């Protein structure tokens, strides 16, 4: 199957040249967007994992064994 990319990489007319330029620019923008979102996601997941570890710690702190010890 002929992909859209192949259509744009086989320019024959001036209008196709223009379309190729627009498309390449879109691809560049889209790639930038993905890398940008990846960075934001990594920061987000770092925060989530940190609080999950704190939550695990809290689970031990407020466990039944500790309750028995306190009593």
């Amino acid at each position, binding site marked *: 199957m002929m992909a859209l990319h192949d259509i744009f990489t086989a320019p024959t007319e001036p209008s196709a040249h223009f379309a190729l330029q627009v498309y390449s620019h879109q691809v560049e923008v889209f790639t930038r967007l993905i890398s940008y*979102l990846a960075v934001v996601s990594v920061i987000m997941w770092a925060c989530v994992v940190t609080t999950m570890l704190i939550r695990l710690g809290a689970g031990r702190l407020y466990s039944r064994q500790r309750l028995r010890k306190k009593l």
Partner: protein
Amino acid sequence: MDLSGIGFGLFAVISTLYILHFGYYLVYANLYDIWQMRRRFGRQLEAARGLADVQQPLVTVLIPAHNEELVIARCLDSVIASTYENLQIIVVDDASQDSTPRLVRRYIKDRQFKPAYCKLVAKIRNGGKGVALNTALKHHARGAYVMTLDADSILAPDAITNAVSYFAYPDVVGVAANVQILDEPTVLGILQKFEHMIGYRSKKAYSLCNCEFVIGGVASTYRMEVLREVGFYDTDTLTEDIGLSIKIINNGNRENRLVYAADVVAATEGVDGLRALLKQRYRWKYGSLQNLIKYRQLIGSTDARYTLGLTMYRMPVAVISEIFLLFSPLIWAYVIYMTLTQYSLGLILGAYLTITIYTLITLWTAEKLTFWNQLRLSIYAPTAYFIFYLMDFVQFWAICKCLFHIRSLLSNKDSNSRWVSPRRIGREVSLS
């Protein structure tokens, strides 16, 4: 800046907001869980040392019913099995055409319950759910706290005890329950189960930041004095439960706090067909929009009675989400087109993994879910991403239908909290 630059900026801002929002839910849900553990530990310690308050204030459990013969006995069984003893149970029958009132009468007679403990209020004329609830609240409820329960729902034995414990905080006026969907082995059943679990996770975050304004009708508990103060339920919107919670908040949420209680567990039947789901979501969407329009002065308000979290974040976000929903097909189309044409699956894979991991985290930290249920649902987790698209479609359809009725929505016509009950299944289940 050229057009694609603007597009990039817009898309980047929206996506970042989505990711940050997602992170906010997860981080704050973890902090909420820590708060819950601390609370539970404190209560257990007090109970073990004999310091716990042994006095039980009277709690009225209100069960509005309209044609609920298949499920009403199951609901009553679960309330009666409660570990909380000082109860007043009122079933309000809103002119059912089936044998609901007869069944309730027999239920009370067979168990020889005194009217002070359990009674039936049978209305002759059907007036809608809000009217039925108001009748019972104004003329029959005596409790210091009122819990409303839908007839197709069941309560966990410790639900009322746990709900009452939140009123130890003087600013808490309403408690939202953790409502789970009863097991249904269908795509829609699993979808609703995941949706409820994930939705309630966001409630944890809102609760901790005191910006919650939506409390559903199942197993929500209120202080009676506050209900009297606000004049009980409004009957001019399709969702009387959201109407009541936002009406309370309208008096200032700094002093009238609504909290989500993950340990107040109830379960309800999900709808069993796409058509019923579409109908239900349209009603919810219409009712939510009615309430957002009715209380629009809260959006962006700088009044000191409200938290900024409510007026500057939660309520504006509720409005913006509805607007985004309208454009969601465009966003899907753009993402799918670019992903396919670029031969890059990065974005879709990222989104897929995020949703799957989020679903798994939600599952494994869910309250009152047995190990085997967690394991069973984990098998379905990889499909969550795809079935959420179905829910997106349902929500999109609901908002479009609301737009078709924009005139009646803005003029608040077609506004009566009437009964819209999906078909009941009425299987034997328990939450103990």
